[in-house]
């Protein structure tokens, strides 16, 4: 059986994802970017179009890789857990992991690799500390299911869900610094609470972090 090719980019792009716009704001024009888990290449295309980046992608799905290459993007089939180690230090200005870290087997190793390969890492993830999730767990005593996290626990690929506070702890652990942290809700509206991590953790449905290594070298 030959897998059929997904038709991509039929004029008019799909509506731009909210976290993609927030990520694009964090990227300096003309940078070298690695998008890990790049999906159908929407973010890479957005970055190429609006920031003139030199972009590369890694994607686990065969069909999506093929579609990415067919639309002119440089993408390899692979995954964050096994294919980041092959990249040299400082090969990129930014390594991006958008809504993927919770699905990796070893998030800490992945984050360390991102910060080794690139000067800065941009990581977005669903926030398990959101009040609805907390409330749902408290009230039902079962794993929360929300529009953000729709799958039953046994179906979900999200093996390592975390809260914003948890993630900040991990950032410290890998000796990195938070340059910018944005919490946002499901419509992609940025929450005006950047000074309070506790409020972000309570009201942000998702978060995007811009990180950099503490020590250069």
């Amino acid at each position, binding site marked *: *059986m*030959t*897998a*059929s*090719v997904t038709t991509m980019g039929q004029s008019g792009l799909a509506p731009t994802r909210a976290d993609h716009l927030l990520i694009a704001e964090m990227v300096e024009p003309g940078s070298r970017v690695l998008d890990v888990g790049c999906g159908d290449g929407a973010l890479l295309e957005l970055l190429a179009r609006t920031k003139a980046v030199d972009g*590369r992608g890694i994607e686990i799905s*065969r069909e999506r*890789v*093929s579609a*990415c*290459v*067919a*639309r*002119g*993007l*440089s*993408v*390899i*089939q*692979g995954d964050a857990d096994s*294919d980041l180690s*092959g*990249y*040299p230090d400082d*090969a*990129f200005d930014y390594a991006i992991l958008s809504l993927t870290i919770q699905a990796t087997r070893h998030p800490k190793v992945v984050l360390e690799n991102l910060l080794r390969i690139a000067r800065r890492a941009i990581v977005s993830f669903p926030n398990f500390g959101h009040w609805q999730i907390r409330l749902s767990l408290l009230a039902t005593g079962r794993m929360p299911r929300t529009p953000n996290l729709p799958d039953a626990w046994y179906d979900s690929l999200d093996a390592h869900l975390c809260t914003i506070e948890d993630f900040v702890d991990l950032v410290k652990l890998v000796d990195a610094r938070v340059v910018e942290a944005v919490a946002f809700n499901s419509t992609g509206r940025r929450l005006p609470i950047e000074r309070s991590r506790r409020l972000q953790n309570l009201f942000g449905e998702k978060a995007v972090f811009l990180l950099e290594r503490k020590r250069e070298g």
Partner: protein
Amino acid sequence: MATNSEAGDTFEAQSGGTMSDDALRQVESPDSLKVTFPTDRPLRLDSGFDLAPLTIAYQTYGTLNADKSNAILICHALTGDQHVANRHPVTGKDGWWSTLVGPGKPIDTTRFFVICPNILGGCMGSTGPASVNPETGQAYGLKFPVITIGDMVKAAARLVDHLGIDTLFSVIGGSMGGMQVLEWCVRFKDRVYTAMPIATAPWHTAQNIAFHEVGRQAVMADPDWHDGSYLLRGTRPARGLAVARMAAHITYLSEKALQDKFGRGFQNRDQRSFSFDADFKVESYLRHQGSTFVDRFDANSYLYITRAMDYFDLESDNGGKLANAFIGTKTQFCVISFTSDWLYPTRDNKEIVKALNAVAANVSFVEIESDKGHDAFLLDEPELFATTRGFLNAAARKRGLPAGEPTS
């Protein structure tokens, strides 16, 4: 379906007779273009041997543009030849990559100038063991020097020079053709804008070498081989070469493809014959593959080319580290493998990708789902076509080449 498999012909195809004077004539007078580099410009082979004269037979399709920036070099596989997209002069079949190359095809000859040389060591007009040895006036036979994939590439580069082309827009090939693509990117780094190594490997594994050795031993065990001098004696090691081909053919397919196509089906009978006839369809098929192959291919060429593949090892050639081969490359790569290819499996193709990543090269990699085995790269694989078209179109835009027809 498999009209142009590396393995060759369809099950139903008719045998074309014995090898055919038609095929033998191609050695000296190919039905294609050819260029001969004179004796005062020998090709220095990796072995140190100076080969002269050197003839390269080749085909071209499309038109070279004014600034010579639209040339694509296609490298053929072990038993392929320069007849990529035209009717084959010996077999009468369509060109071996006519699915991929032609007007409006993914490698669009209305936009690109496509060149395909017969490899050094081949038997379709380029200098090889069946060519005349200037020292004796007779066919080289085993006096032909042992060659490498790198030598094939150096010979092809002579042709590219001859055509006045400095930088190739792309170098594309599958299997052994992919090995040549990689050698191009190593030996002529600045002359390759994009590269598509397909269903290939950065080295020949022990299993690859082992299969080739079986094939060579089959040829050499044929009494008609006469230590390689069969052309002088008017014989041909047809049985040995056919057995070599039968064994190799199995490696081009997958277990599933064989099972689906033949199963345990009987050939022209309802039950066992209690003899060694070709009772089974699969036996009949393999015998047919063997016999049609010997009609068009020179046995000594088969020995030399398989040897060149066995010697291929970009890692050991580059100080034991494959990534070293690609340091400083500016080429955009698109590596493609097939899920059911066990001859050059995804694992080996990914070694190329890893090495390219290690030097931060621009590389795409796609593993295409197919149950057709290694041969998939020559067959009707829509995802291969879409990927090739997309990759080349995007690179052409970057290169400033005019847009192609918007074909889906």
